[in-house]
């Protein structure tokens, strides 16, 4: 009985019952709060911080010099270049698509709108490996367009276009998903005001809409970029792992690891991790400034 009591009380707290009432239940809500924080911190430490530390520890195992030397490898450099190029191409395309989709969904009523919203979420739900496979089935030698592509000497699979397509597929939801609720919430009034004041479409977009959604857009871009640089599954299927040509950073890490070149593998991993950490830091910064700006 005594053991069950705190559970019942905790449930009441969760239901917002006791938490809103001062007095006898405050010690309980404090306990619950402490419990929740401790659980999440323990979880984070085990699953996030430990691996992060390991990555850097392994990368610097043989000293800083060996760490730097790993980056001198031309294949590694090619992988870094490929990753950056992919992100540089994919992210702007995602911005255009995300803006168009969010605009269409937030501002217009049309047939198949809910279908479009569901489809935008699809890449988040589908396993990345399957995302890659789809492109192999479409553009591979035995795929639907395979023969035609070969005849015209265009290589998609096991080449840069395939990597970009696969990356684009897994990253396009981020900008749109960030913008749709924002644009729906902000409504049309400012745009309509601009139009009645004589502004045209482009002017309304650049002077009114874009400044209004800039933080949401930036946030979407950051998430999209992080995923574009770090994607393994989908890219792995379409890349063909040709060293120095079609390996991105995540693929290069795998190759080096499989060759027992732990320092090399973890050095690239640490760079990727750094990119991720920097991205997330920028995101946090954006969030803070953005919310203050709103």
């Amino acid at each position, binding site marked *: 009985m005594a053991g069950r009591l705190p559970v019942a009380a905790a449930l009441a707290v969760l239901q917002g019952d006791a938490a809103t009432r001062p007095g006898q239940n405050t010690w309980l809500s404090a306990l619950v709060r402490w419990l929740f924080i401790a659980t999440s911190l323990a979880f984070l430490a085990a699953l996030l911080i430990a691996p992060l530390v390991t990555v850097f520890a392994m990368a610097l195992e043989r000293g800083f010099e060996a760490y730097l030397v790993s980056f001198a490898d031309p294949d590694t450099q090619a992988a870094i270049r490929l990753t950056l190029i992919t992100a540089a191409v994919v992210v702007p395309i995602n911005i255009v698509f995300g803006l168009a989709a969010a605009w269409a969904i937030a501002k217009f009523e049309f047939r198949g709108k809910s279908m479009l919203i569901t489809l935008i979420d699809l890449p988040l739900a589908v396993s990345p490996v399957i995302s890659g496979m789809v492109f192999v089935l479409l553009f591979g030698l035995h795929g639907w367009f395979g023969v035609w592509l070969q005849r015209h000497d265009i290589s998609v699979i096991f080449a840069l276009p395939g990597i970009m397509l696969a990356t684009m597929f897994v990253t396009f939801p981020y900008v749109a998903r960030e913008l749709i609720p924002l644009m729906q919430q902000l409504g049309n*009034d*400012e745009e*309509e*005001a*601009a*139009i*009645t*004041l*004589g*502004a*045209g479409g482009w*002017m309304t977009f650049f*002077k*009114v809409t874009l*400044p*209004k959604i800039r933080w949401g857009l930036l946030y979407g871009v950051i998430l999209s970029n992080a995923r574009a640089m770090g994607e393994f599954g989908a890219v792995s299927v379409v890349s063909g792992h040709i060293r120095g040509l079609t390996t991105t950073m995540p693929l290069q890490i795998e190759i080096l690891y499989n060759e027992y070149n732990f320092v090399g593998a973890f050095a690239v991993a640490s760079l990727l991790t750094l990119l991720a950490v920097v991205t997330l830091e920028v995101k946090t910064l954006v969030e803070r400034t953005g919310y203050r*700006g*709103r």
Partner: protein
Amino acid sequence: MSITLDQVTKHYGGVPVVNDVSLDIGDGEFFVLLGPSGSGKSTLLRAIAGLTGVDYGRISLHGRDVTEVAARKRGVGLVFQNYALFRHMTVADNIEFALRVRHMRASHRRERRRELLRLVALEGMDDRLPAQLSGGQQQRVAVARALAHKPEVLLLDEPFGALDAKIREELRRTIREVQRELGITTVLVTHDQEEAFAMADRLGIMNLGRLLEAGVPHELYSRPATRFVATFLGAANLFLARNGAEGIHVGAATIASHEHSPQPREHEVVAVVRPEEVVVAATPAELGSRFVAQGVVDEMVFAGALERLRLRLEDGSAAPLLATADAAATPYLEVTRTQPEQRAFELHPGQSVAIGVRRVHVLPTPLSSFTACAASSAAAETLARQPLLAELAARMKTRIGIRPEPQLGASAAGPEESAPFVGATVISCEPQAAQRAEWLLRHGANEVLVLPAQATVPQRVLIHWMDEAVRPATLAVSESVLRHVPAEAEYVGTLSREVAQELARRLSEAPGQMLIVGVSDLARFAERFSPLLDGGRWPVLVVHRAPS
């Protein structure tokens, strides 16, 4: 004319939200569109601004047809309920936006901005962001911004909706002053009648997408033409009165109203009595105005300057107040009394009083009430619960009477009761409905509504008159019906010989249609109309006026 609307119609998903609105607004006029939410007033305003296209009709601004002109080229200023200021721009940038669009020189822009800020009493606020201003200040900026490019027309969409009472009043005065100073034609949309009265040169009242009446506030208040306007503009008690040779009979009183033209044949009318026109006293002799009925004080509410009373009428049959469609509900009378009136005769709940009226206004509406008529009273009561009839009566704020007529439809016998048929008489769509309708029309009923059991509120109303003599009456009845249903009206022109067959064909073309048909000649009525009425599938309202 500054703004001319001609039969403007706009549908959303098949439902007309703005339905056949025609209106002229003069130069420099302050016009207020008043209506409950969902009445289409904001849509109409957006249509004038060009933000919403219209499905039918024309819109002209200063004689220029702008129906097809883009919003940005119409040269109107629009103020939104939630300000819609550009949140990332300063007050100065907001106001100068329209001038930047027009590539005006910076020095000229600055000058115009100063002028506008002075106009809305916000000098020195240039560098603030909208978020740093109060709601009232933001709306002032929005007004200044909308006026920057010197539009010919200023449109205000519930501009005070989000503000509290004190600031609302202040801003109201500012806007009125700015409007007078600039002499700009202004349309304001609101659902607040006090606001409408305070600001309007002229007032238009909308409901269910239709513009019901337009006029000077005082005129609309004292002489409304429709039930909706009477009850929406201020409070109103609606009575079912009888208009006869000596005057209007309201309860026990006979009032020779100056607006009333003596009628040879007594008929039922709807009379409006404003709460402030009701007098109460201890006895009929002390009233000082005409005695209508006895009543009991049911509720008293102190409301500052005024006292609000709710009186229960005793002897309900003698004073048939228009209650809800629910005939069983007690009819209440709303009364307001000023402080001097209260001091002269103090009241307490439960007290019995004599009720008199100072002033009665008769509505020109042709449909006063409904009477469900059937062979037995049980059948008539069933008919009174028919969904379309109940809905119509509720929307018209009128009652449904019950009248059993065992001889209904029998050619030889007359009505059981000697009382005349008042209002619209309703019968069901049984076999021989045409014969019953003819019987009712021959025995004095002016309007007969034949109702199928499942009929619901129509989406479209077909209107046809058999000859010119009944045209005015048919149109008046149609207008009255259409004020209460959000339906499209369609006039059916000259038809071939087989009028009834032709109309039946038109009615069967689409679901949810109703027919209003005017007849003056009753010869062979049952025979001619049996295809339309007997066991029919459509609600049909027959309007009959004998040729004079």
